[in-house]
């Protein structure tokens, strides 16, 4: 039983394209997140979202947008892809009332050519 899953695992695309990464959690958590891990392994929060509030890291370009069709899903849409968007993107979830432990997905490696 996979707790947090992401698709696709690998994504190779060209500059200028629009792409989406899907994330699903089956833990019944109320909050989901997207993180970006660059080539130097730096991990940075992009978004935090529950059904009431979206919090955006101010450094994230507005080409990136999270979309949540329901509590179990938080998809990441990226418009007009740039070379610098190449990274590994991690989805995570948590149940805030039970403390701050976050459960991470396996990551999606995005390569922009």
């Amino acid at each position, binding site marked *: 039983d996979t707790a*947090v899953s992401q698709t696709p695992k690998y994504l190779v695309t060209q500059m200028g394209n629009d792409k989406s990464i899907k994330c699903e959690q089956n833990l019944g958590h109320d*909050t989901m*997140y997207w*993180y970006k891990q660059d080539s*130097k*392994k*730096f*991990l*940075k*929060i992009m978004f*935090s979202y529950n059904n009431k*509030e979206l*919090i955006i*890291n101010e450094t994230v370009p507005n080409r990136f947008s999270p979309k949540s069709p329901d509590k179990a899903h938080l998809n990441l849409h990226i418009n007009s892809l740039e070379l610098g968007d190449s990274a590994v993107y*991690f989805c*995570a979830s*948590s149940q*805030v009332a039970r*403390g*701050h*432990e*976050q*459960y*991470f*997905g*396996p*990551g999606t490696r995005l390569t922009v050519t």
Partner: protein
Amino acid sequence: AQRVTQPEKLLSVFKGAPVELKCNYSYSGSPELFWYVQYSRQRLQLLLRHISRESIKGFTADLNKGETSFHLKKPFAQEEDSAMYYCALVGAGNMLTFGGGTRLMVKP
């Protein structure tokens, strides 16, 4: 603004040697800190959190508010401890601010 600093990008030790991975933070409120670990080809997972004051896989970490540190320690390193370790601080929106990570290599 909150910040987490891990001064060592790479730490290489021999099996059986003590290990200390350093973490310093800056935060205006009362901090809640974590250590996450990423083994090769695996997802990021929680190792321990300061409020639990527990020992996981032989690792411990003590919050030192005076020195604003949360160093991770293990008295005897094992080869299976080789991984990427991230110190993290939770802030607004339950978002984690991560340090830059330290790669621990335990040599046989």
